[in-house]
């Protein structure tokens, strides 16, 4: 049953995918085409990356509300400053720097993560507005062709790399320590895990993931917007919980969060093809979130009962 809770993300994704196929087929009388899959892939990628970063933080028992600001800032910088591949490291460095600031406040300042990142959220958002006061900017087509090519599934490569990156991370000592801290920070410290350093690293990685998400965002939309990050705050948290990562830390995986992100994207399509009155859409999205997580809680309860 522990396994069921851990695999919640895959199950929800599978169920949503089946529902998607069903409503699509009944609505249009055919199955989705390559175009549909490609556009799902490309529009989901930014959330996938933010969700990976968020899941790392949640695995240590924290939460990162500042992802909204970090994504906004990196989107702004990407749209304004990136003229070729050589500037991409700059964006990644800025995202990581945002994460480093969070990491310092959380690990060294010993401020609760939700508060630390609540405070840095407006700071990063303000910086984004400063960089890009009006939506605009651009991204060089050669970058777009490689990242989110509208005609070729290049996004699959990056999705694969992201998942592979996670699997590699999971196989480092750092990865093991992330779980150790989330499971019981006090005990982890007692067995010699450098809790502060790992916590710091996790927030830095979350910042890096936000930067990656921002680059993909600009690549799909071809321009920047300083308010772009705001929706990612709550959707990334939703993706993480739907993906079966426990809020108490220590349980779940970033791949689950990726599945959760994909499921959330598919829900939009399910609602679309099911012809739900647009005014009621939020209702179903809210229910989806609560029910998905309730299934997870139920699985845990059953496990405890056995």
């Amino acid at each position, binding site marked *: 049953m522990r396994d069921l809770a851990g695999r919640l993300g895959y199950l929800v994704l599978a169920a949503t995918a089946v529902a998607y196929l069903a409503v699509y087929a009944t609505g249009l009388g055919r*199955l989705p085409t390559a*175009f549909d899959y490609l*556009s799902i892939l*490309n529009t989901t990628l930014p959330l996938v990356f933010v969700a990976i970063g968020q899941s790392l933080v949640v695995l240590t028992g924290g939460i990162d509300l500042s992802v909204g600001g970090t994504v906004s800032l990196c989107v702004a910088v990407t749209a304004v400053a990136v003229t070729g591949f050589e500037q991409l490291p700059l964006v990644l460095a800025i995202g990581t720097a945002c994460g480093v600031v969070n990491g310092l406040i959380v690990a060294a300042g010993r401020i609760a993560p939700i508060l630390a990142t609540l405070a840095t959220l407006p700071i990063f958002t303000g910086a984004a507005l400063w960089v890009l006061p009006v939506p605009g900017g651009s991204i060089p087509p050669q970058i777009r062709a490689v990242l989110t090519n509208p005609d070729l599934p290049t996004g699959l490569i990056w999705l694969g790399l992201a998942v592979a990156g996670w699997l590699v991370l999971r196989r480092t000592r750092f990865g093991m320590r992330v779980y150790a801290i989330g499971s019981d920070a006090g005990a982890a410290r007692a067995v010699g895990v450098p809790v502060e350093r790992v916590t710091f690293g996790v927030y830095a990685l979350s910042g890096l993931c936000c930067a990656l998400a921002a680059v993909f965002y600009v690549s799909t*939309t071809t321009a920047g917007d300083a308010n772009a990050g705001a929706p990612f705050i709550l959707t990334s948290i939703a993706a993480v919980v739907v993906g079966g990562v426990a809020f108490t830390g220590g349980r779940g995986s970033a791949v689950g969060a990726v599945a959760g992100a994909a499921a959330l994207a598919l829900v939009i399509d399910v609602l679309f093809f099911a012809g739900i009155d*647009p005014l009621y859409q939020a209702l179903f999205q809210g229910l989806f979130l609560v029910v998905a997580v309730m299934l997870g809680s139920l699985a845990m309860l059953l496990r405890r009962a056995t």
Partner: protein
Amino acid sequence: MNLHRLASAAVILLLAAACGQAPQSTAGNTPAPDRKLKIALSNSFIGNQWRVEMENVFKAACAMPPYLAQVECSIYNAGNDVSTQSRQIANLISQGVDGIVINAASTSGLNGVVQQACDRGIVVVSFDNTVDAACGLTVNTDQIAFGKQLAQFIVDQLGGKGNVVMVTGVAGTGADNDRNKGAKEVFAANPGITVVATYSGMWDSATAQRATSAQLPALPQVDGVWVSGGTDGVIKAFGAAKRPMPVFGGEAENGFRKYMAGILTPKVTGMSIGQPPYLSVISLELARAVIKKEHPRESITIPFPVVTSESLKPGETVFPDLPDSFFADFTDSGPDAALILCQEAATDGTPCPGKTLTVNLGTS
């Protein structure tokens, strides 16, 4: 329980379905003349009155001749989330619609998917918060002129001398920036005018009221107020603080116009310019006309309806029975009107009884 395998199987099924399907060209460029056109409205956020009216008039227009017979309409909201809106537009492409009318969550955020729609021969018309993508058509008012005209009105009323407050909109959006830019140009050109405060009302009456209330006590005498949106809130704040009413230049909220018309007291002197909600209907007509090849493939800029305290007409440009937050310019007026709509179209989205809608796209 092998749920994991089950899940994998479902995903594989999904992918298999992807490979099994040959990519299909979706929409033909010229539909058969007898077929109903499919035109969809993709709106970003339904969270304010203007957007609701905009959808309502769209809905009403679709239920009125000639659209009733010619067009099959659908409406989608994306909750101000760019990726949701992009998903919806992608799904519209899959559905094979003929035209998409967009009010965007981000002027830049939909460029990618709009380009894809264009590539498939779909006519894309964006309005209000328009899309940058070059292939798409736009229907809009001139936002810089909006800012300028309101500012000029204030300057003229004050005789070129006095203290002015600017209440701006949602920072980081194109419309806010353009309006502010226009206004600042005019104020800067008049050395007698001092801008004593600039703050954001978020295009929301309640927010504008709160921000103004908090500001006012620290402000010197204010002679004119330029408001990007939420004007009635600003007036209420002045009233609550018992400050003399300055000259207002603002949006087309019914509440503002009620003050201007003296329906609410105190009567204020002002100019009200609207971003008309019927932009959605004009966009619908443009899309229809372009698809039917009745109109060149061109963007249009429509003049915005302007009223002053003197020119207001109850029942036409100000509505005593409707809420303050209502946008009073849901219909155009006058002999050269782009279109005439009835009240219930805006309030309930129901068609105006026994009326055929004629939309004048102008000569452009």
